[in-house]
């Protein structure tokens, strides 16, 4: 489904700030893989998602999506099959548009954005039903601008919008990190509901407990390298203690924030 082959990426090449992040990173994901990525700050988690989505281009190596080499394809072209939610709730919604307008906009993904009415009035009840499932009363705020919503409300909306077109690949970058525990749980539950057999997802988190509770594959990154890649039963059996024990010899693999 997704293949990263021997990716090399250096930031600020040729300057004193030159920084080699990936020196031959490879990763394969099959349909139905729901990968949770953990790793300390700067280990290259966000960049991994950026490389896949096309917001960062690699120096060498290839990115293959659904058997198509997209290494040199622009972000908006790859986006057709990709749904994305960022840590910042602002990145996933348009603040000057209402919930109804935002959802109409997202629902049209995959089709042409032409001169037809932007507002999908006939989908209103469907949108409301989708919002109702969140259980945070967003369905009563259809005419509220996204900019006037709280971070958690906005992120829940962003997640709904990102998954509306049934993307083949869902990229989530600490999308529940900025939320309070209750909203974070709601957003993660909703996320879980998209982790189906015919979808693929990559979810970055700083929280080891969340990482163990979600997905069917665990990837641990450190300094741009894959330290650990476990799936299925092996992942199910994994505990925080075992993880910490495994890497007790390495420095800065874990930070305090990852444990709580």
């Amino acid at each position: 489904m997704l293949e990263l082959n021997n990716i090399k990426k250096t930031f600020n090449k040729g300057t004193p700030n030159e920084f080699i992040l990936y020196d031959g990173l490879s990763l394969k994901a099959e349909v139905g893989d729901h990968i949770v990525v953990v790793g300390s700050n700067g280990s290259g988690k966000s960049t991994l998602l950026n490389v896949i989505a096309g917001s960062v281009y690699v120096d060498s190596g290839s990115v293959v999506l659904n058997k198509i080499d997209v290494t040199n394809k622009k972000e908006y072209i790859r986006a057709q099959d990709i749904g994305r939610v960022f840590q910042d709730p602002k990145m996933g919604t348009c603040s000057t548009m209402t919930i109804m307008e935002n959802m109409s906009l997202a629902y049209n993904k995959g089709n042409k954005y032409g001169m037809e009415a932007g507002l999908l009035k006939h989908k209103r009840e469907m949108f409301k039903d989708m919002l109702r499932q969140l259980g945070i009363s967003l369905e009563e705020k259809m005419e509220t601008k996204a900019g006037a919503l709280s971070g958690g409300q906005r992120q829940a909306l962003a997640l709904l919008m990102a998954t509306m077109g049934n993307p083949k690949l869902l990229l989530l970058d600490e999308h529940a990190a900025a939320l309070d525990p209750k909203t974070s749980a709601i957003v993660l539950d909703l996320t879980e509901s998209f982790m189906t057999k015919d979808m693929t997802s990559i979810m970055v988190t700083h929280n080891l407990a969340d990482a163990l509770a979600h997905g069917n594959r665990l990837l641990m990154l450190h300094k741009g390298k894959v330290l650990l890649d476990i799936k299925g039963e092996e992942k199910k059996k994994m505990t925080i203690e075992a993880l910490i024990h495994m890497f007790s010899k390495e420095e800065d693999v874990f930070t305090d924030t990852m444990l709580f």
Partner: protein
Amino acid sequence: MDVLISGIITQGFIYGIMSMGVIVTYLVLDFPDMTVDGSFPLGAAVAASLLLSGVNPWLCCIAAFFAGTLAGTVTGILHVKLHIKNLLSGIITMTALYSINLHLTGKPNLFLGNAVTIFTFENGLFAGIPSSIATLIVAFLIAMVIKFALDWFMKTKKGFLVRTVGDNPQLVASLGQNIGAVKIIALAIANGFAALAGAVICQYQQFFDISMGLGTIVMGLVAVIIGKTVFGRIRLIQLSTIAILGTIIYRATIAIALNIGFESIDLKLITAVVFVIALVLSSSEIKESIVRLFKVKNNA
């Protein structure tokens, strides 16, 4: 109606067409577009030169509109494809347009003389109506056509993208749409409006002057800030309405200043002062969005 008052409102409607473009680039697209100072006289130059060669005045307006969209497209391409900063892209196009406008007209001023314009009412529909009122009605109708076209566009799917790209370009990319293309469309429309306003003003005052574009953008911005400050809080008010009403108030301010003894050479000075006053009096939200726009940044 007093000829002076009808003149103010007429000009308010005409310049209002330009302000509607400005509100699209500045407030919706978040793009400080200086092209307008060149596309406004471009519209006038196109209309004036075509009129004098006997072309139907309405066709002249349409031609001017398309010339303006072309100018906006050039600015958009400079910014999107060549990654030139937004402010600079507009300045480059505006500079080039100065020569192009001169080429179109052949000289720095052009008098339309007795050429038939959209404001020629010898006979027909407006027979018996004072010409100042007939002029007002025509200006009003053009402004309304543009207003409703813009309102409609902003509600289309493409319009939704334009609104999104100014607020959150990442979302546009995430939706699988080309950010650059959306910006170019918005710039084309805005400059089409500016050029149309130029074409209409040129027929209204019956002459073209190469420097008539000077300060157009400042004028548009003042109008937008005034409109936003005075009418911005009205629920569901359209941006286009804000632009037109803001322009009329601005024109009235200028007329009052001239009436209490300022001379026409003071016009730009008055505009500058009104700009500062409007900016100071405007809500912090508008102030921030305008000031932020002119901090040089690159968001190609």
